[in-house]
């Protein structure tokens, strides 16, 4: 038992040290590098919290895609100049803010320690109702059945975010393809990796999606892996992104949430409640929705990392 406690404390200490490093880092690049390392440590922390589903997502999105996004942004800012920078607060203000934040941490820490014991939980309710969903993974059960609405709305949030990001394109670049073309590196070892890895990644993603019904995994993790594979191929110049006007691309992003809402409305019509699944067909319907959602999530995540079409084509 104590070995595990020591490991937890070590993880927490490492995470704290990296977090301090992020905040104190003089260069943005250092901060981002430390932040990615922090995300990887957190992935281990999630495993220790018995949240393997979250660990997979944290690794793929929290550390992976966020890291790529931030590093690419830093790279671009370094090229065009850091941009106008707000005035950093003076010493006295900084100290005051520091004390305030320490107070927030103290209050929050106290609240965490003061949470009631035994802790309230819905684990028993989930266990009792999970059989009706024909799913083996309780987290997938919550995501797709009990709190299916949240998942549906979250998929809609991704579509909205893509629209929001595209709306930030400069008008003269609007007809172009998302992403800044100068990031593409066409030769060297990256091209090799971009040829070898995607087949493996696709197999892994399909596996993660498939086992998600009964074991940790699911559409978001699989979608993130697929998005990463797509981005890799794009970076190596092996794949092109169609222009914003492309109907198939837009339809891919929209298909998952649209199907999910359609299934919900069908439940309203035939079962009398939104998102009530047809009896006996619960699992097939859920798997179908998850399958289409994975494609939409992958497309949306990749487009979000690419950013709006850029007017900047310089090498």
């Amino acid at each position, binding site marked *: 038992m104590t070995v595990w406690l020591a490991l937890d404390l070590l993880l927490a200490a490492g995470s704290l040290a990296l977090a301090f490093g992020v905040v104190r880092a003089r260069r943005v690049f250092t901060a981002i590098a430390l932040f990615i390392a922090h995300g990887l440590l957190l992935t281990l922390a999630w495993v220790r919290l018995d949240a393997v589903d979250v660990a997979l997502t944290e690794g793929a999105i929290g550390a992976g895609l966020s890291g790529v996004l931030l590093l690419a942004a830093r790279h671009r800012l370094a090229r065009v100049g850091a941009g106008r920078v707000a005035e950093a607060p003076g010493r006295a203000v900084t100290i005051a803010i520091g004390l305030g934040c320490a107070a927030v941490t103290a*209050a*929050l820490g*106290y*609240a*965490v320690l*003061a*949470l*009631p014991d035994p*802790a*309230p*939980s*819905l684990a028993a*309710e*989930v266990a009792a*109702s999970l059989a009706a969903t024909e799913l083996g993974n309780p987290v997938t059960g919550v995501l797709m*059945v*009990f*709190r*299916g*609405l*949240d998942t549906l*709305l*979250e998929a*809609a*949030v991704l*579509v*909205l*975010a*893509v*629209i*929001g990001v*595209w*709306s*930030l*394109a*400069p*008008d003269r670049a*609007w007809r172009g393809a998302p992403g800044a073309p100068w990031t593409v590196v066409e030769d060297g070892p990256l091209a090799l990796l971009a040829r070898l890895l995607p087949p493996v990644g696709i197999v892994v993603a399909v596996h993660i999606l498939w086992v998600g019904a009964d074991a940790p995994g699911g559409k978001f993790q699989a979608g993130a892996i697929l998005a990463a594979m797509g981005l890799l191929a794009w970076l190596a110049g092996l794949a092109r992104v169609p222009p*914003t*006007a492309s*109907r198939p691309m*837009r*339809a891919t*992003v*929209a298909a998952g*949430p*649209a199907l999910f*809402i359609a299934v*919900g*409305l069908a*439940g*309203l019509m035939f*079962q*009398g*409640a*939104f*998102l*009530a*699944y047809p009896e006996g067909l619960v699992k097939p319907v859920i798997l179908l929705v998850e399958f289409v959602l994975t494609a939409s999530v992958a497309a949306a995540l990749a487009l979000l990392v690419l950013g709006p079409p850029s007017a900047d084509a310089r090498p």
Partner: protein
Amino acid sequence: MPPPAATDWGILPLLAVMLPVLAMVLAAPLGARGAERLTLSLLLPGFVLAFGTAVAIHVSGAPVVHLLGHWSPPLGLAFRADGLAAAMLLTAAIVIAATALFARDGFGTKPGAPETRAAFAFWPLLLALWGAINLAVVANDLFTLYVALELLTFAAMPLACLEGKRETVEAALRYLMFALLGSVLYLLGVALIYGTAGTLDITLLSGRLGLDAPVIVAAALMTAGLLAKTALLPLHLWLPPAHAGAPAAASAVLSALVVKGSFVILVRLWFGVLAGAPAMGAMQILAGLGAAAILLGSAAALAQPRLKLLVAYSTVAQIGYLFLMFPLVAGMPGSEAAAKAWTGGALQAISHALAKAAMFLAVGLMAARLGHDRIADLAGAARSMPLPLLTFALAGLTLMGVPPSGGFAAKWLLLSAAIEAGQWWWALVVLGGGLLTGGYVYRVLSAGLTAGGARAPAPHPPGLPEAIALGLALLSVALGFLPLASFGLVQVGRMGLAP
């Protein structure tokens, strides 16, 4: 309280949320022109759904509830539309419809014309905003409300900088930072509440939480986060540049609806989730901040050289009125004064939404005709643009609280509730705020009514946009003609009341 049980007609608020969301998802593949037509075709059904919800609540005298997938809370999620929710659904449907019709001029796509960036983005953003505000008033689960808040932010932020000018992008970034900080603090509170009670359903939580340490910390975090999103002074700094820099149609929905979403969630937090935990001190602080917002916001509006900024600061001030209801409702729960304050707060939210949307649309029309929005150079506006100036004046009456307008009814209810509750100082604030509001409205009118300078544009035959803005202003005034009894609707399903 026991978990909410499904009722008849629960499908109405559900569809009021899901139809705009579905339309938003379909908007991108349909393209700008398709999205525009889809939005316009949804305006009437959306209004009917909101109206139907109100009728169902009025007839049954109880909230309308839909359980998603037949799963009942705490495991499942519920939509619960009470009187306040129905009133907000109706307001949103009206404001969205007016804005959409108004926006056809600026964001419409002619058949065969290429899709522009602004037109591509505007319609789905408007639809998302509509779905999000409806979700924010009917969802009964604290985490679903978090998703609603994020949807609201992600729709509102790009609207604020749709023109792509540098200042507006800067304002949008500042707005996004405030909003993200606000929602993350809110989510932190949600985590603590789940850890304390094991449920996030507002009805189930109501009366179950005492004043334990985690609950106090959660309440503080969530309140701070929601205040940042509602732009209550001193967290208002993001609002004026963001709302003033947006295109007129976007400003209208931002000021009229978006800030109301987080306000309604705050009401649900204090009078639903925390109904069993009286915190009069916190209520007085909220109202104190509201009072400061009324006085300082109005004074700032009085000093603005630009018309759009004046209207935006007026929003900062009018938001303050909403917060006066907190100590008055909490002071003597179940009393006549509390009921009056509740109705007053709801009515203020509605009448401000209508009046402010009208005002922003009118100001947008004036700025478009003049090519600028400097108040000092408004001379001749009364002759060249009589309808927008009249719209501004009528909306101003509601904001001032001059009888017989919707704003008068709201402010009168708050004022008399304050006196009945023995908290007369809030009544003074209401009166003082009305005077200051009169000051800035008069400033604009007097500038517009001066005989035209040489640069005043020629008179212009009013079209549909002018009529829409005027219609909203007339509605905001007409609210005051409704018999007071008809506002009983917003009392239905109020939590923390003896049944």
